[in-house]
């Protein structure tokens, strides 16, 4: 998983969707907070190049950005009532890392036009 921050929360995408991380702003990028419907938090930013459907797109995220292995047993489907009512787009799983939730999102859904 590649972990990143957005709107004061911790998110992750499967590492196979991430081609690179940039430390300077590219010409075109979408803010993760904008895609997720969150308010941006001040702080250092990074840009993840995500490839979805053969198209590479840049997403601006908040630090820290980390490549991390998360045990399968710590990755859970969203509970049914949460899945039905949560308005957060693209959430596919909730992982727990050292007792803190990591929201796993699907970049295919997140970046769908």
């Amino acid at each position, binding site marked *: 998983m590649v972990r990143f921050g957005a709107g004061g929360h911790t998110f992750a995408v499967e590492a196979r969707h991430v081609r690179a991380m940039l430390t300077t702003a590219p010409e075109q990028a979408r803010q993760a907070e904008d895609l997720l419907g969150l308010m941006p938090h001040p702080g250092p930013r990074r840009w993840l190049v995500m490839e979805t459907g053969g198209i590479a797109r840049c997403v601006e995220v908040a630090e820290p950005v980390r490549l991390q292995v998360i045990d399968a047993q710590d990755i*859970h489907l969203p509970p049914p009532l949460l899945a039905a009512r949560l308005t957060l787009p693209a959430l596919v799983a909730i992982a727990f890392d050292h007792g803190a*939730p990591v929201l796993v999102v699907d970049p295919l859904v997140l970046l769908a036009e």
Partner: protein
Amino acid sequence: MTDDITPDSGILGLDQVLAVKRGAAGPVVDVDEPSVKLVVFVLGTDWFAFHGERIKEVLSDCPVYFLPGCPTSLEGVINVRGDIESVIRLRVLLRLAEDGGAASGSRILLGQGAGMRSGIRVDRVEDVMDVPQSAIQPPPHTINEHLRPLVLGIVPFQKHMVTVLDLERIFLDYRTGGL
């Protein structure tokens, strides 16, 4: 034994004692009558209950993790020994007045119904009790319209009328957006 047992001493005879006991015994309980277990809890000043078979656990001091995008009726998620469960705010679902935050004695009931499981925030768990099925009366006509489909009946308990809620219906309606 050196107690004074003269008739004027105020000591009751056995017949009198037994008569008093018979009078205080109350109605005879038919032990063969089917009973239901209820988990009685409080939201503000209102008393409610779920059928005991629907409540798997009562959790206290369980950290709830807020997730972005939760409506006010969803408090977040909890980690129950490795299983992730949602936590719904029953007070919001039932449209009861807010009390300014969770009380110190608040609990999370881990409920199960309609193939789903979720935590349910309540202010206080009062009791877990067995009541005869016949003690559960049909809901009164004066009950709020929005509550009517969710209420199985009412039962008197400790000078309160306890509203017995249908957990399966609550879960189903909440999932489909009806609540």
